Every structure is written in C-alpha cells, then in structure tokens.
C-alpha cells in the first residue's frame, strides 16, 4: 500500500490513516485512495502523456519558428 501523491509506504495498522511523509489521507478499505505499488496509476500516466504531448507540440512550434526565422534572415 503506497501513497498516491508521494509514493511513500503506508501502514494501515497506524491509528490515523495519513501518509507519514505528505500527510495525504487514505482509506485502507478504498482501493482508489492508495496505490498497490509505488508507480503512477492509470490516470496519472494518461496525464503525463497529455502534458508531454503539449510540451512536445509547443517545443516543436518554437523550433519551427526559429528555423524559419533563421532561414529568412529576419
């Protein structure tokens, strides 16, 4: 059982169900509040792919603009 935010190991035997590192709350009976392994869940992976795509697109546009400007001499 691992924290969804900081991937710290969670101990359900503790009295307060909070991450010891980031203090994010979790419910040991609700699988959606923690991770089964310290790796991003499905939604976070999708989010990473989307943000990387956007960053990639913006970077490609900037590179293209610089190359066109360099070619035209402006």
């Amino acid at each position, binding site marked *: 059982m691992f924290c969804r935010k900081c*991937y*710290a*190991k969670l101990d359900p035997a503790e009295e307060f169900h909070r991450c*010891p*590192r980031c203090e994010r709350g979790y419910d040991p009976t609700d699988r959606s509040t923690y991770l089964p*392994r*310290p*790796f*991003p869940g499905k939604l976070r*992976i999708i989010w*990473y*792919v989307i943000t*990387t*795509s956007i*960053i*990639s*697109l913006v*970077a*490609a*546009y900037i*590179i*293209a603009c610089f*190359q*066109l400007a*360099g*070619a*035209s001499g402006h």
Partner: protein
Amino acid sequence: MAGDPKPQPLDYRSPAPEKLKYLEDAEARAWRYRRVLFRVGLFVLFAPFTLYFGPNLIKFGKLTYLSPADFVPYVQNSGVPIVRAIKEYQRDTGHFPNQIHDLQPKYLGSIPGYGADIENGQFVQWGQFEHMITYDFTPGIEGWTVSGPFAKGPIPLPPVTIGPAASK
C-alpha cells in the same frame, strides 16, 4: 572543569531522527528509478516528434525534411512555361532573350509578379521557402536546380523540350 561530562560530537551527516522513518530501502529506491525512467522514456519517445517530425510538419506541411523533389509541382506549374517560352524565342530569333520581358506578348502571356528573371544565360526564379530555382541552358548539364536554406541540388525533372518551328 575536569568532572564535567564530555559533550557529544555533533553528527550533521546522519539524517534527523524525524526523517529516519522516511528513508527509502533498496526496493523503494528501485521503484523511484523506475518512475524516473518512465518520465525520461516518455520524453525520449516524444523527442523525434519535437525535434524532427513536428517542426517539419509545421514548416513544410509534411513529416520529412524538404528535398529538391518537393519543388517539382511548383517548377512544373510556374517555371516550365517560362523556360519553354525562352526556348521558343531562341529558336525563332536565333539568340537568347536579354530579359524576361522580351518574351511578351508573343511567347509568354503574363510574367509572374515575383522574382523571375534571366541572368547570365540562366533562368532564375524565387520559389517556396525563399529558395532559388535555376534552369541552366548549357548543353550537357541542362536542367533544374534548387538552392536555399532547406534544400539544395538538382530537381528531378527532365530538360524542357520544344517542338520544331511551325512552317509558314
């Protein structure tokens, strides 16, 4: 004083006691490396699009870099009619036109408004993306070439040919 207890040396290198429980073991460290590898891998996966395919798509409307072959449609539409007119002028008059306006109105209906001219026995025309397209009339090396910031070299087109003069 001689009887005072010796002070404990300060240990700055060890982690603070409250942080000790967060220290990661070998397995946690391995998972952290996997997470970093995943993020880096994602960027590596997108790198070809960011650095090559994306800029080409934005600049040229195609995924690969510009090549002389990409100028073929442009040359066929705008360059070939002018070169054909030059050759017809040369066939009929026996000499090369001094300027492109010499072709009007008999050999060429209209002259393009952008840079197209005759220089040093060559037809020169500005093409897409600020490239210069040249037609060399020299026998043996006759043909089209392009030079510019993105493409340079011979355009894969055969030399322009014209028929014999119409008999009167």
